[in-house]
């Protein structure tokens, strides 16, 4: 069996490229609604009562979960794409990936905790 000089060299990144496009398109669509809600009607967007009402509805919960998940993934995968443009030693490349994944999971759980507390 062939030993690869660089770990992960079998991964072309094609799936990540594809998912980056798909998540980006979904994020743009959700963002339009988000912007209209938060900035065209600031009171509906920012008062505690209005926010809590949305937080209790399954529809808005779904929107928020999608937003947090795709937003974080898209952002951190994009950050990984920046690193990928440079030649990295395998250990450094692995370390950065692990750190990005941990960062993503940490903030994902914080976001999930806020959304699912209501």
């Amino acid at each position, binding site marked *: 069996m062939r030993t690869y000089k660089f770990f992960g060299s079998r991964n072309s990144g094609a799936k990540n490229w594809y998912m980056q496009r798909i998540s980006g398109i979904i994020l743009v669509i959700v963002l339009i609604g988000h912007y209209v809600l938060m900035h065209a009607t600031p009171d509906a967007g920012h008062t*505690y009562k209005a926010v809590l009402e949305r937080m209790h509805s399954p529809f808005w919960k779904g929107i928020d979960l999608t937003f947090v998940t795709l937003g974080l993934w898209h*952002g951190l995968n994009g950050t990984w794409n920046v690193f990928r443009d440079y030649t990295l030693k395998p250990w450094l490349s692995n370390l950065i990936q692990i750190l990005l994944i941990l960062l993503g999971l940490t903030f994902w759980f914080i976001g999930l905790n*806020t959304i699912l507390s209501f």
Partner: protein
Amino acid sequence: MSNLTVTTFFSRWLEVLFNYRKHTGSWAWILHRITGLGLTLYIMVHIIALTGLLKGEAAFNEEMAMFKSPVFLFGEWLLGALVMFHSLNGVRIALVDFGNGARYHKQILAFVYVLGVLMVAGMAYLIFLH
């Protein structure tokens, strides 16, 4: 790596960056990258800020009142500008990758800049004057 090699590496990197000939797409790529990193940082701040919801009505409303101060309003507008460029150019990238955008990517970029400036001006109206 010693301090010296880090400096040499960095100055060489800067040298390459500045000596590269920048075509129209290069600027879009640079801006997409900077705005993307900024937005990634922002979504984390945003997630932390919204944990304020768990502290009850008074604390949350106090936090929201803080966001209405001029400094935060300006930050909101700046954020809107980052989002606007990143999403418009993101649509351009999707068109180039999935559609026939490679033929028209320069025209789409001109469209991105014009529409972006108009939308960011509209945001200034919504945020500062509405």
